[in-house]
């Protein structure tokens, strides 16, 4: 990862794009911008940014579709720019693979903090590895293998799995996970956790609809079990 984070900002409104580019650049990021989803996807292929900041409302293909197309090939972090009024946006956005979202009108500092938090998730913290059934988490290489095959996890999914694997058998509440993984304050959106768990299960579990590794603990949150 480059020392100066390289961001791709996809936003159709000129004023917002310019203002956010200005703000993010001042926070020390290198920013490439695109006005449409199509341009953004092309820029993504050419320039390989570290992270995408993506507006939901785009002419042509919308933000969700852009998100889905990126996820087909890449696991880089995606932050959605959304309006909270459209609660459905958040759910659809998280389902299409976004790692986090910020609500407009967004403060530059908040967006910067979220970007840095997402980027930190890919950082290596320890050098051991752990095995849960047929899933092996290699904390030094930051890779997860299932039956010897590499799993393509986004940094957020990887971090969630790492945090759960650090306390096997112990239930973590959504709010705890939001603080540990997303570095959100006490008002984190628990749907982030739920959506990320769903995606993680789809990749890790044998049968995602009846999980044996990442279990739901009713009234509390989630727990990583080693299958018996």
């Amino acid at each position, binding site marked *: 990862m480059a020392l100066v984070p390289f961001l791709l900002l996809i936003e159709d*409104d000129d*004023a*917002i794009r*310019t*203002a*956010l580019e*200005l*703000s993010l650049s*001042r926070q020390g990021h290198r920013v490439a911008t695109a006005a449409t989803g199509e341009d953004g996807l092309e820029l993504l292929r050419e320039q390989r940014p570290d992270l995408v900041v993506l507006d939901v409302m785009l002419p042509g293909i919308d933000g969700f579709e852009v998100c889905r197309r990126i996820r087909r090939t890449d696991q880089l972090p995606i932050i959605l720019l959304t*309006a*909270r*009024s459209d*609660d459905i946006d958040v759910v659809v956005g998280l389902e299409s693979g976004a790692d986090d979202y910020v609500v*407009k*009108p*967004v*403060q*530059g*500092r908040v967006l910067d903090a979220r970007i840095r938090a997402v980027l930190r998730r890919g950082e290596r913290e320890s050098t051991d590895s752990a095995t849960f059934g047929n899933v092996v988490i290699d904390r030094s290489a930051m890779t997860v293998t299932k039956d010897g095959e590499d799993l393509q996890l986004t940094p957020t999914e990887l971090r969630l799995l790492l945090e759960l694997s650090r306390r096997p058998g112990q239930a973590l*509440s*959504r*709010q705890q996970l939001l603080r540990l993984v997303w570095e959100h*304050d*006490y*008002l984190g*959106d*628990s*749907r982030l956790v*739920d*959506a990320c*768990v*769903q995606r993680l299960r789809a990749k890790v579990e044998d049968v995602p*609809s*009846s*999980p044996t590794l990442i*279990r*739901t*603990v*009713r*009234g*509390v*949150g989630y727990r990583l079990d080693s299958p018996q």
Partner: protein
Amino acid sequence: MTETAKRSLRAGLRWTSLRLRLVVVFALVALVAAVSASGIAYWLNREAVLTRTQDTALDDFRRQMQETAAALPTRPTKDDLQRAAGKMASSSPGYSVLLVAERERGKPIVGYSDLDTFTRAHVPDSLQEQVARKQPLTSSNEHEYHLFWQRTSIAGTPYLVAGTRIIGGGPTGYMLKSLDQERQDLNSLAWSLGIATALALVGSALLAQAAATTVLRPVQRLGDAARKLGEGKLDTRLVVSGTDELADLSRTFNRTASSLEKKVADMSAREEASRRFVADMSHELRTPLTAITAVAEVLEDEADTLDPMIAPAVHLVVSETRRLNDLVENLMEVTRFDAGTARLVLDDVDVADQVTACIDARAWLDAVHLDAERGMMARLDPRRLDVILANLIGNALKHGGSPVGVRVRTEGEELVIEVRDHGPGIPEDVLPHVFDRFYKASASRPRSEGSGLGLSIAMENAHIHGGDITAANSPDGGAVFTLRLPRDAERIVRNDEPGAGAPDEDGAT
């Protein structure tokens, strides 16, 4: 008894009474008609039957008297009389005869046709007098004696008694004719008429019932339709058939319903339009605000290095931008509630932690005294709880000043949070309006006191959880806002929209 059951019972009584009234009126009319018709028929029949029997008997008696009694010798013996009486009685229509003559002055002799049934005692005295009286001869009256008759009753049986005297010193004859047969005939006639009347009554009652049904069924349909209309089903219409008054009423009902429907549709369309306008406007405002907010921060970072004349301007722009942000955010929140698109994002939280975090995040720790035990878990929307608390505590700090007391407790399945200030309290006339939008306690209060939406939004947030907020003045001074929320808002969400609010139902534990 439930309210609906009461209402249906009352409706039942009302229907019954209208039905009853119709039946009673029909029955009365039928009764009067049948009774008067039967009465007249009976009376005419009775007269006809009696007159005919009587005339026959009397004619026969008169003839017998002329033929038999007049043929008696001037001074008949008792045997003569007896024979004559017997002869007269046996001649035809079946009556008994009594012949009285005077063999010598003062010594009457009597001949009986049948001593058992007819003696002189059976003849009323008034009739005897009448018969015996000698009528003065005038131009209109050619005879001294006439035939007189009377109806009488002996031992419960009706009889016709008649008597006359032969002119020129002949014997006096009486006859007794039983009218029992006639009475029996007339009785059976009366029975028949009575039965006919009863049948007419029953028939009229059935007819009334049928009439009531034909009238009441449309009325009931009308009633049902009106009730549905009242329940808000404005597309309720009646099927109009026929041209009678009820059809007219149905047409009127339909016209009223459609004009009502149109008016309501117009009104809600207008309201919808104005709501959409507010929603669209706040959306539209947000785009420039996003750009301005991002740039304002850049300016703020540089403010210290700017010209001292310009720095205050930059700070003003930044702080006003934040206020505008808050206002737009509040407006959007309100439009979400109005449009019914606000959703709960439920999570299990420790209430004390949430309250502490809310106070801490706004740097109110020194101004708020918190009384809450950790470990009180509740399933609610943490963001919305935060909005409620921030508004209530912020309001208390603004109007009451510190310290503000926040007390958290549980009552059964309810979570109760009290926010108490030590200010002057809320004037009684303001109390009912504290949760109104844009309502401010004092018109002269400067506009910088907030958007005027805070408490209204807090209330909406409580309602969406199935909870409530009440405002009151404490007896020891200061205002108390009490928030009540169910400890598990899941049920509310389930009821509102099945399938939502439970993102992962994998059944694992």
